């Protein structure tokens, strides 16, 4: 075998490795549950958009199918539909129909939500993840009324790899965007300092809280250069997480730290990634219930001693 073929073989083995049905089902529950709660928590956004004038409407994505804003009753019917579908998706009910319906519904909503002059990038990754899950057999385990789960198979493993690839790709694209738009000036501390200053000033002018660490970081400007390098390294280095093991763990801790730092200095928080939900496809999530049970047993044993 040629030296070039070997890495490709390894990638192919990784891509086509079997995984337990419970792992994919766990991701369905975590991602479906997150998106349903996110939509419910953002009900104000539906209220805000149920009476906007047509002049503000700049359709993008799926919303390009519309030539004017959705009437308020239809928007609220859509919200109710998304809630019902989101719960059914998470529980795995009638998944073959509900999976695609929920994913397309969320794609329609996120397109519409971004059609008012401001693209909301924090909604992209969960939309992509739902579209992948919708086409996968993600309700073959851990759903109501289900008997014994099937054995591990590539049809459960491959969609998980796609979810992980989508996660890594979105980080890499963000890193490439910084290099394309800013080039080496990204490493100039003034570049990140103006982003931090801009975000803090914006929050103040719109009546929001100021980022707790913005002033500290700007007053200690020696911190900013290493922060800029770390941000770019984390984004461009996302593919190392696909390797698994320690490399993945180090990258995930760094990525969560990056999101926490962005929240503390700029009050910009991509909840789906920052809370770790978007990073779950990198892990064997089916082990979580067992780990929790064993943790609980140990706690009970410690208490009874």
């Amino acid at each position, binding site marked *: 075998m040629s030296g070039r073929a070997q890495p490709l073989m390894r990638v192919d083995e990784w891509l086509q490795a079997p995984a337990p049905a419970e792992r994919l089902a766990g991701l369905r529950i975590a991602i479906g549950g997150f998106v349903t709660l996110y939509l419910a928590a953002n009900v104000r956004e539906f209220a805000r958009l149920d009476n906007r004038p047509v002049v503000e409407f700049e359709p993008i994505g799926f919303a390009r199918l519309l030539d004017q804003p959705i009437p308020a009753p239809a928007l609220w019917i859509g919200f109710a539909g998304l809630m019902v579908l989101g719960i059914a998706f998470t529980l795995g009910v009638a998944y073959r129909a509900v999976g695609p319906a929920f994913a397309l519904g969320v794609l329609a909503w996120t397109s519409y939500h971004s059609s008012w*002059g401001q693209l909301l990038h924090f909604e992209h990754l969960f939309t992509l993840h739902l579209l992948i899950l919708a086409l996968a057999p993600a309700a073959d385990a851990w759903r109501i009324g289900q008997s014994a789960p099937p054995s591990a198979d590539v049809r459960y493993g491959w969609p998980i790899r796609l979810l992980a*690839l989508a996660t890594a790709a979105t980080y890499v694209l963000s890193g490439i965007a910084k290099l394309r738009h800013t080039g080496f000036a990204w490493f100039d501390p003034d570049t990140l300092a*103006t982003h931090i200053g801009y975000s803090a*000033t914006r929050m103040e002018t719109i009546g929001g809280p100021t980022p707790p660490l913005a002033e500290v970081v700007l007053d200690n400007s020696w911190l900013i250069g290493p922060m800029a390098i770390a941000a770019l390294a984390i984004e461009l280095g996302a593919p190392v997480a696909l390797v698994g093991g320690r490399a993945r763990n180090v990258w995930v801790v760094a990525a969560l730290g990056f999101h926490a730092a962005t929240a503390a200095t700029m009050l910009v928080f991509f909840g789906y990634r920052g809370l770790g939900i978007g990073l779950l496809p990198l892990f064997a999530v089916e082990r979580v219930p067992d780990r929790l049970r064993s943790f609980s047993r140990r706690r009970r044993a410690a208490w009874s001693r």
Partner: protein
Amino acid sequence: MRTVRRVVTVAMLAALSLPLFAVGDGVPLSSYPMYASPRAEVVEFVVVSGLDQRDEAVALSTVLIADTNDPLVAESYLRREIAGGRADTLCREVARRIELSGLDEVVRVAVRTEEHSVVDRARGLDSMIASDAVTECAVG
């Protein structure tokens, strides 16, 4: 089936990368340009304030100002209303929300633009470069 999976995987990665080369930023395929471009040190902001009987400023929440909790949406909304020549409509909408909220001490709403050195502002230093009144309206 193995080949189909390979082809679909490559197609998905190609689709995700497409905004870099062709279609630009969109939903859900994006070039993720946020916070990627350098910003100017001095930036103009739209500022909406509540004023009491003595003309003193009363802090307004993001929800009262822009009917949202999201700072990106709020900022974009304010900029677009001013750029679109709808400052008076914006002012009346804020006044209506204040009235509905029961924040009785606010009797007027003032909309203005302010230019700040953003780094100085965030450091708590004197940052104002310019300030221009845009419009005012009464609450109630």
